[in-house]
């Protein structure tokens, strides 16, 4: 029963990873950039949610929507200021800029409000416990998983049915050809950043409610792990990010259940290195030969 309990925890954590991983994978798919600042967008989302609940006295859904909107704008701002001028620069230059942006957000945030952590109010969602076959399930984890699933379904609809989704797929396939076909590549890239950042913002609010404590450097580790999840599923592939996130959450929960909870963070990186060595295309990717 303990094991099932841990699996449920793993799925809740995994759905948070999956939401962040979606942003990584979409941005990587379209501009081939590891957006290191993505974990910090997640952090900002968490704080926006916190302030909307405590200061503006809002309930869960409005706070979630405000956080997603602010994060979407924030993501577009980052892209326009820092990444757009570097679109034709070397990969290393783009990566270093992303690291710089990430550090700037973290320490700028600490500079403005201080490094002290905050405690999320825990009366936002009902905290009842259900007993199903001897396993007690927290209603919060069910709701969190539900919100994550709904957001992922909306994302799938946007990507596969809407005009902007079609443009995104075209640009990630071949940006130059898409431009020739009359697609506004810049706007499409901004839209990708907006959608990815909104998902990270939602993940931030969910994380705050589930884990209660939030602080300005909280985005670093979940951000890196979400990247691991994206690589695990095959970077650039949206369903891959979801499965990768859930899988990583479950793996971590199993490691904790086996009594190695101190090694939890290391396991994610071991998984990353193993995947990169033995299956660099990820679980869902196709093997592509390098062009000379």
């Amino acid at each position, binding site marked *: 029963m303990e094991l099932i309990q841990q699996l449920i925890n793993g799925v809740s954590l995994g759905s948070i990873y999956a939401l962040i991983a979606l942003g990584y994978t979409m941005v990587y798919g379209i501009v*081939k950039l*590891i957006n290191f600042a993505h974990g910090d967008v997640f952090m900002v989302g968490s704080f926006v949610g916190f302030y909307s609940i405590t200061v503006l006295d809002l309930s869960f859904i409005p706070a979630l929507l405000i956080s997603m909107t602010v994060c979407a704008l924030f993501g577009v701002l980052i892209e326009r200021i*820092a990444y757009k*001028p*570097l679109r034709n*620069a*070397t*990969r*290393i*230059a*783009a*990566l*270093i*800029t992303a*690291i*710089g*942006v*990430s*550090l*700037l957000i*973290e*320490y*700028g945030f*600490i*500079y403005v409000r201080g*490094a002290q952590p905050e405690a999320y109010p825990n009366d936002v969602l009902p905290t009842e416990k259900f007993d199903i076959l001897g396993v007690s399930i927290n209603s919060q984890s069910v709701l969190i998983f539900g919100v994550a699933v709904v957001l992922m379904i909306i994302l799938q609809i946007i990507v596969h049915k809407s005009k902007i989704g079609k443009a995104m797929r075209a640009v990630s396939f071949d940006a130059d050809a898409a431009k020739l076909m009359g697609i506004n590549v810049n706007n499409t890239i901004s839209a990708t950043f907006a959608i990815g950042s909104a998902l990270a913002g939602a993940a931030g609010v969910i994380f705050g409610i589930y884990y209660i404590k939030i602080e300005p450097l909280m985005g*670093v580790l979940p951000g*890196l792990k979400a*990247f*691991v999840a994206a*690589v695990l599923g095959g970077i650039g592939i949206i369903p891959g990010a979801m499965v990768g996130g859930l899988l990583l959450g479950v793996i971590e929960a199993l490691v904790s259940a086996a009594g190695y909870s*101190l*090694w939890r*963070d*290391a396991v*994610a*990186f*071991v998984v*990353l*290195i193993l995947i*990169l*060595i033995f299956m*660099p295309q990820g679980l869902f990717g196709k093997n592509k030969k*390098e062009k*000379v």
Partner: protein
Amino acid sequence: MTTIKRAKGFWLSISLSLIFFAVVQVLIGGGSLNPFYQNTLMFIGINIILAASLHLIIGITGQFSIGHAGFLAVGAYASAVMTMKLEMPFYAALIVGGLASALAGLIIGIPSLRLKGDYLAIATLGFGEIVRIMLLNIDYVGGASGMQVSHLTTWPWVFASVIITIIVIRNFTSSTHGRACISIREDETAADSMGINTTYYKVVAFAIGAFFAGIAGGLYAHNFYIIQPSNFGFLKSFDILILVVLGGLGSLSGAVLAAILLTVVTTFLQDYPETRMIIYSLVLIVMMLYRPQGLMGTKEITSMFKRKGGSSHEKNKNTAA
């Protein structure tokens, strides 16, 4: 002719640096340098070694590695175990620290050969974190509370290590092996098709870079009274990365200058850690937007003097061609 000139330059810079060493040594001996300045000097030295060793991996071989704090940690802990637990002399501890780190470089270097660019960066970052978490969980070295280390790092040790590091990396770069590494940086596929064993050279660069990072780790550990795994997180890796990026990816003298400059800046901003990180991150961003090649580009200080000289061998070569 050129070898004589090069040798002359070599002996000139060696004697200049020896004079510098003697002056500082006399100042320390005479008590005119207070511990604050002495400490800053040690830090500059350690950072120069770190910058030079990462320069070999990123600037020369083009392998974007951001797990350098991992190598630093391996060296620091290995040498601290040697002196504190096994009671070996300091020089042996430094060498063991370097070798342990080089071994770690081999271990991470061999699998990461299959990776490129971003993937290698993230894998090395993961490696650094794995090292940190392993150290956290090993009770023999004190776990999270860290390990007591006696203060053994002195100015002559730091100076000697810096000079050896610079000479080795400089000579490696201008040797056949170094040229092979540069060709890998410029175009790996082309280098491979020209018959260069890219696997071998990438591993060698990783191992040498890690070795010197390990030496720096030994000096770093014995400069404090305590070392903790939290000293070696990825922020430390980014600190080292910014030295190389600011100096110019591919310029050894640039890396050295950036190490001196930023260590001094860091020392003055010690009481304002947030401000320091904001300045660092802005430097990274602005640098990449407006001058991605860094302060020095791939130029060395010595090549600037050559151009002024008028009769350097480079110029002769140009007229001959």
